């Protein structure tokens, strides 16, 4: 399955990946509209920074997905064929149990309404995830692994 990793030595903490993630998961997918007219969704990737060191992380699509095990609504499951973790916002009730049990801190409350959890879905409508394709430093890359 696909997993996104970061090259810390070239990540400059510009957070453009967060911007493009928000645009990709917005209603209009228009960068100006998203930030000027809409309420932007939470970014599914987070860039942390202290001085020169930075750290980018999104859903790890864990082989043992605590979020799916803890979900009280049956809204999170592991795709048997790909191993990908899938979240069904239609079943999500926004109880935030996954936000608490994801020890990566990689699931975010999307409070735009309906209030549901948000996490990296690897951009199913794109050939390559937005954060990976649009990082100016090619600091994010996709790995195919178990």
């Amino acid at each position, binding site marked *: 399955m696909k997993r996104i990793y970061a090259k810390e030595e070239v990540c400059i903490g510009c957070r453009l990946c967060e911007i493009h993630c928000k645009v990709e998961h917005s209603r209009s997918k228009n960068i100006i509209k998203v930030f000027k007219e809409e309420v932007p969704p939470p970014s599914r990737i987070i860039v942390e920074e202290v001085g020169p060191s930075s750290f980018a992380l999104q859903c790890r699509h864990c*082989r*043992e*997905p605590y979020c799916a095990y803890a979900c009280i609504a049956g809204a999170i499951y592991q795709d048997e064929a790909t191993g990908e973790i899938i979240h069904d916002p239609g079943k999500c009730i926004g109880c935030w149990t996954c*936000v608490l049990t994801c020890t*990566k801190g990689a699931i975010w*409350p999307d409070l735009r309404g309906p209030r549901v959890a948000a996490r990296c879905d690897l951009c199913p409508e794109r050939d390559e995830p937005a954060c990976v394709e649009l990082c100016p430093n090619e600091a994010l890359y996709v790995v195919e692994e178990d």
Partner: protein
Amino acid sequence: MAKKKYDYLIIGNSAGGIGCIEGIRREDRKGTIAIVSDEKYHTYSRPLITHLLEGDVDRKGMDFRPRNFYRKHQADPYLGFRAQNLDVKKRSVSLVGINGNSGNRETLRFDQLLIATGGKPFIPPMDGLDLDGITPMITLDQSVAVKKRLGRVRNALVLGAGLIGTKTAEALSHVVERVTMVELADRILSPVTDHVSSALASDAFRGNGVEILLNTTITEIRGDDRGRVAEVVLREGTVLPCELLVLAIGVRPRTDLMEGTGIGITSTKIGGGVDVNVDMETSIDGIYACGDCAHAHDFVTGGMKLLPLWPNAYVGGRIAGLNMAGSPHIHKWATNMNSVDFFGLPMVSAGFMLKPKGKGFLEIVREEKGSYAKVILKKDVIVGLIMAGNVARAGLYLGLMRNKIKTTTFSQHLLADDFGAVHMPDEVKEKLKQPITVIE
């Protein structure tokens, strides 16, 4: 009388039972499985029954797994059957059809058994309990029954302001004119809050028209001339009208099936739970238990205790299933941990809610308008967490708690907006980048 034999028999069709099927099938595609429930329904998300009552989740939204789940996992469902006469020597249990299955009887034999019978409402003896319009709120049927009678309810009263009581009151507030919660403790949600986060939740309830009465309880229930609940009398003499009374004082382990069978049960002040090891096996070989009926390891206190929480039931069942199918696993994943949202106020908590007495404990608090965060540390290891209003990245703290990571070098950042992996020691940071491959 037919006597079928299964490799795996599961009693309970909720989180624990489903987790067990999924655990077994990860290791064993062939072994035969049966799953039994006295409820006649396809597996449903029990914590969502208050959402069904309110109407923001429909009946289909209650399904915990897709409708083809049993077929896909090759598990025979026996739904609408009460299990009784468990014989651990003959390794058999009899099933009696109820809920439309009346008259059907079966005896099932098994190699291995999971007991995931859940909890039953605790209802103290009181006069008037037999009146119409009084109900617990732990099953789909109870939720549907309340929904049906809402037309004649102007005043609803919820006794008990724990998780079930508060979620019920929240749901009722959207569909009933007046809702009152009555709680014996000095704050609502006491098992999952401290006084500050409880007050934030109380504000959310009061702001949405729910009245909260603390430090009191019901001493008398009175009915009308048609046998329906009409009013209650509180300890101090106040009389409150109510056409609906929901009893949500607490839930106790449902262990009737195990009593007298030789399966070890430890009594506690809130009822006896089935004893298990960390592999979820009871005192009898090949018989496992999980969820609200059983004890579980608490990774904060290190002891075995009742942890009647949905995620604990699922993971306990899953680990039981893996062990039954021959893949050794232990369950040290759970603690007192909860997440909930009231009227748009998110709240999570884990471990200790109040700083324990004794040396070595330290509290770090961050309080702002509408939000609150607190960690309790013991020798620099997080042993308690409360977040309300803003719960983003709560899981980072839970991970540090479970893995007993010393926060010595980064405790000053713990509750900062930008707190994250970047503050943590390299080995912790490296681990965060990798997917989780072992339940621990």
